[in-house]
């Protein structure tokens, strides 16, 4: 049972990686990065590291918000 789910999570990570490499728009890169982070979580939970998963789920959006401050659209 777990192997199929973990294979799907690996597919999710690979899709996020290739989309983050080949996309041009910074917002597309951020969306691909969120796919990659979502693919990492089943691996952490599968080993039983639930406290690590809780801390990472609360810290990882903060990095996205800090990158969004850098690529914010300025009013002309």
């Amino acid at each position: 049972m777990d192997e199929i789910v973990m294979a799907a999570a690996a597919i999710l990570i690979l899709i996020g990686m290739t989309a983050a490499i080949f996309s041009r728009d910074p917002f597309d890169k951020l969306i691909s990065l969120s796919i990659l982070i979502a693919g990492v979580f089943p691996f952490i939970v599968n080993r039983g590291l639930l406290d690590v998963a809780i801390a990472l789920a609360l810290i990882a959006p903060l990095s996205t918000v800090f990158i969004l401050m850098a690529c914010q659209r300025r009013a002309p």
Partner: protein
Amino acid sequence: MIAIYLCTVIAVYAALRIIAERNTMRKLPFVNVISFAVTAIIALLLPHPLTILAAAAFFVGSTFESNAIASTWSGGMKRNG
């Protein structure tokens, strides 16, 4: 056992739709779909009482992240005057 397989299929399908979509605005609902599906995968993967807390934390975090991307992409608050 069929529920977790269904959630994995939904997650991979939404990721493929994000790859295939050209418009950035149409990509953003599928990010929410991936976050819902991965939340269900986390909740169904281990029979442990702390798992539901990890799933709730991931749900809150990923929804916050995708909504921050969407509101920044659409331009944020408009100020008059």
